[in-house]
């Protein structure tokens, strides 16, 4: 396999939350570079490509994840790359955060990534090669008001990923986390523009992230040459 260019040719990537935003961007990137994509999302597919298979899965529901993998195994017996991107965000003061919204963030952002990773790892162990990338957020480092549980769920991805990195290292599987800064997505559009602008202005690199900023780190984590890179978290924009 070539070490030049994005490392997706011949690989099967499972991308959660693949219908829109960062997930769709990543799925289309993998497809554009010769990879095959299985997308997990609650709604209908938004990607029309011969190498894309969409499976309607709610990652917050372990039974739905199990069914999703059963369906996935109908079209492929291998998963080489997992991008745990599916996430929900409700930004609200803790004292008035609806409990259901709080639970949804933990179930989708953290438990969902766990369930998908563990099922994918069972397939990765057969080939002795795998890359799991968890999509985290600048909220972990910035700890913005209103994002108590969102930030905690994303921080949990790093801890979870680091432990899984140890468990899966003997199987040739790396687990890393990519902390994305503000980037134009539907999720970001939920937040007041002036507040996001102020946060971005305070970053060491005070600009919004571009798609290539995300894809650059994703490519690095997924590359053949990154077999010695695991349990790492990279934040964009200078957040830490």
């Amino acid at each position: 396999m070539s070490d030049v260019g994005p490392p997706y040719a011949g690989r099967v990537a499972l991308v959660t939350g693949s219908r829109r935003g960062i997930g769709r961007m990543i799925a289309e990137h993998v497809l554009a570079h010769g990879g095959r994509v299985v997308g997990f999302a609650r709604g209908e597919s938004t990607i029309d490509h011969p190498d894309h298979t969409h499976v309607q899965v709610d990652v917050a529901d372990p039974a739905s994840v199990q069914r999703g993998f059963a369906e996935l195994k109908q079209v492929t017996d291998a998963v080489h790359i997992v991008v745990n991107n599916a996430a929900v965000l409700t930004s609200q003061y803790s004292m008035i955060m609806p409990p259901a919204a709080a639970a949804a963030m933990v179930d989708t952002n953290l438990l969902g990534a766990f369930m998908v990773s563990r099922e994918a790892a069972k397939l990765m162990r057969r080939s002795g090669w795998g890359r799991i990338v968890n999509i985290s957020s600048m909220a972990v480092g910035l700890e913005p008001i209103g994002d108590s549980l969102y930030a905690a769920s994303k921080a949990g991805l790093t801890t979870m990923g680091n432990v899984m990195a140890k468990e899966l290292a003997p199987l040739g599987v790396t687990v890393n986390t990519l902390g994305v800064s503000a980037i134009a997505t539907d999720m970001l559009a939920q937040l007041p523009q002036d507040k996001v602008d102020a946060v971005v202005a305070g970053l060491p690199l005070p600009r919004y992230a571009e798609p290539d900023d995300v894809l650059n780190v994703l490519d690095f984590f997924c590359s053949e040459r990154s077999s010695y890179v695991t349990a790492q978290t990279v934040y964009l924009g200078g957040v830490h």
Partner: protein
Amino acid sequence: MLDHAAVQDIVLRALESLNDERAADDRFVVGPQTRLFGADAALDSLDLVSVIVDVEEAVSAAAGRTVMLTDDRAMSQEVSPFTDVAALTAYVLSLPELA
């Protein structure tokens, strides 16, 4: 319908598969009494995980439905179903989804 012999065969094949990956002088005796877990077990923790996943996959394939061996039922058993081959075989056969 999976019977005792079929399930035990699945467990033994999972162990033999594990043995195949080991050096000749590191292999263990595979049989109905092989210990899977505990101080005198021949398997380390990752080996046991590998065996459980292999058995889960094979049982699911044979049953035509997803079977999970590590849910709350397994954890609440008085005697761990992962003690030895016989215990794991008996536990698989006790699962209501295989009835």
